[in-house]
């Protein structure tokens, strides 16, 4: 009985101090996140890049949810015993480059680990035949 009370008290102490509503604007360090999630490519062909992103996502086992050429954004979901949601967006950077940003959500959590993004951009640059540049 005493242990049950300890169990419950610990739970309340450790988890109960933040309301779930706070999750709305919660995220990691903005600058760090952007550098993990963003690469630039030496091309200005946004439509071609978006088409290659679609192909890469399908290669990785995703089903596309949404695509918008004007916004340059594509969302997709991968189900494989888990749910992984991804949004990739493309926008011009200067006169000669495109900026590609990807962000992923695994189950109910944002993915903030650099490695999965690195893997994604490796696959994307292979398909684009272009090198992915880290953004400073």
């Amino acid at each position, binding site marked *: 009985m005493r*242990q049950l009370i*300890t*169990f419950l008290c*610990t*739970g309340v102490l*450790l*988890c109960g101090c933040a309301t779930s509503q706070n999750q709305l604007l919660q995220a990691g360090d903005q600058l760090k996140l952007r550098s993990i999630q963003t690469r630039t490519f030496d091309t200005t062909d946004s*439509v071609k890049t*978006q*088409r290659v992103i*679609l*192909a890469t996502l*399908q*290669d*990785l*086992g*995703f*089903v*596309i*949810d*949404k*695509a*918008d*050429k004007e916004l340059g954004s594509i969302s*997709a*979901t*991968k*189900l*494989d*015993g*888990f*749910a*992984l949601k991804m949004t990739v967006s493309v926008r011009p950077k200067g006169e000669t480059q495109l900026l590609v940003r990807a962000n*992923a959500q*695994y*189950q*109910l*959590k944002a*993915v903030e*680990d650099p490695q*999965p*993004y690195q*893997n*994604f951009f*490796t*696959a994307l640059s*292979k398909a684009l035949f272009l090198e992915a540049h880290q953004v400073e």
Partner: protein
Amino acid sequence: MKYKFIANFFVITVSSFLLCGCVGGIPKGALSLSPQTLEWRMLQSRRFESKDEKKILQACAALLQDLGFSLEESETSLGVIVANKDRSAVEGGQVIAAFFLATLVGGPAVYDQNQKFRASIVTRPFGENEDQIVVRVTFQRRVWNNQGQITKRQRINDPKMYQEFFEKLSKSIFLTANEI
């Protein structure tokens, strides 16, 4: 006394893991190409002799409607169509087993009830003169049990499904071309 302290410490650690730490990290390789990538790409793609990407997309949309899908999203200028359909996921064997288990152990009989299929089709021009169109389709499904919980989240890899889909698509392209 010391033993009790250790026991309590153990309970605290375990409970905090149970209550807070249940969301694990993203599986390794979830965003990397696998050795099967090429095989799946071939299974999920077909090339059609055509320069008219829009016509092919129309045939794809018509086929999805033939199959009972509802169109969810489309962006013709990128060659994207997304569709879904809800169907029953009840399988006789599973229901019988669930009821058998429920009578044996007590509690409600839990079995798969609903499923939602999703399909995304992406087309792209192919070849030096862009005189071919590649169509690639990917399917997935989620299954819910009769308690409303998700029991399966899976991509569909069965080669037969894709073969059948493309056989039907060839027919649909023919029908659309002939305005039927």
